[in-house]
């Protein structure tokens, strides 16, 4: 049950999603990845992708225009 962080602040579409996909591939089941994003598209497409993969996802708005996408594999 390890927790990892991925900083995607300031990244353009679709980089947060691509990086998340890559990172998550290397994680084990039960691991948690926290992705920091500030892109409004990513706050929608990253959770959508993760849910379609069957992972548990939560999105938290941590600041104006900044979100943490918490994905549990």
């Amino acid at each position, binding site marked *: 049950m*390890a927790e990892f*962080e991925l900083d995607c602040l300031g990244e353009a579409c679709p980089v947060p999603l691509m990086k998340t996909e890559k990172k998550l591939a290397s994680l084990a089941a039960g691991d948690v990845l926290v992705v920091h994003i500030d892109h409004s598209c990513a706050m929608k497409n990253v959770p959508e992708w993760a849910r379609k993969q069957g992972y548990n996802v939560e999105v938290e708005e941590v600041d104006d225009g900044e*979100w943490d996408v918490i994905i549990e594999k």
Partner: protein
Amino acid sequence: MNTNESRPWNQTIGDNMGGAGMTEPSTATVRKRPATARKKKRNQLPIGLAVFAGMIVIGVLLSLRASSLGMFWLFGGCFGFILQKSRFCFTASLRDPCITGSTSITKAVLIAFALTSIGFTAIKYSAFANGLPIPGQSYVQPISVATAVGGVMFGIGMVIAGGCASGTLMRVGEGFAMQMLALVFFVIGSLWGAKDMGWWTEHFISGAPRVFLPDVFGWLGAIVIQLLIIACLYVAADLWERKKMGTPEGE
């Protein structure tokens, strides 16, 4: 169908890690984060209302100059608002199938195609049936090598720039410096393209056919065929996503 599951914005749970570096494995469980103090969020609603008031003022001033200017300002504001709220991106509709296999935006674009096709056909046919000139026919563009080259160029450009034409404008409004830069060069590129249009027209575009579907299939035939094509593409998009991303459990 709303895939957004964000909590109410004012709920302060979890600690703010604000852009700390990469991968720090820890054994803390996620769901039980301590509610530590986070960055003070400013409610931007008052600023938003001020901007809204400003937009109204500009709209009125424009209308005094010419009512069409005010109307286009209004339409622009609506388009921008809707695009941002729905995170609608034509770029994503074509790019995501290539990257992750996701076609949710693709399908939404297809639905937009279907609805607007119906609306436009109604307007155009009604003009035609009343013996009036059909509006908007200048948007029936010639099909030539220029269409193909332009399409590929635009496709590459929109993916690497992180947004298409409407997407770039939308993101300028959202505060993305990168798209502000892209906009500047979009304008420069447009000027450059305009400059070369004489050459392209001479060599490829003049004499190229403009194909208005009702001319080929009749009015009813055209809209029916177009809707059928859209329906087929919709199914194809659905199948593509299932293939690339796997089917949901139990299906």
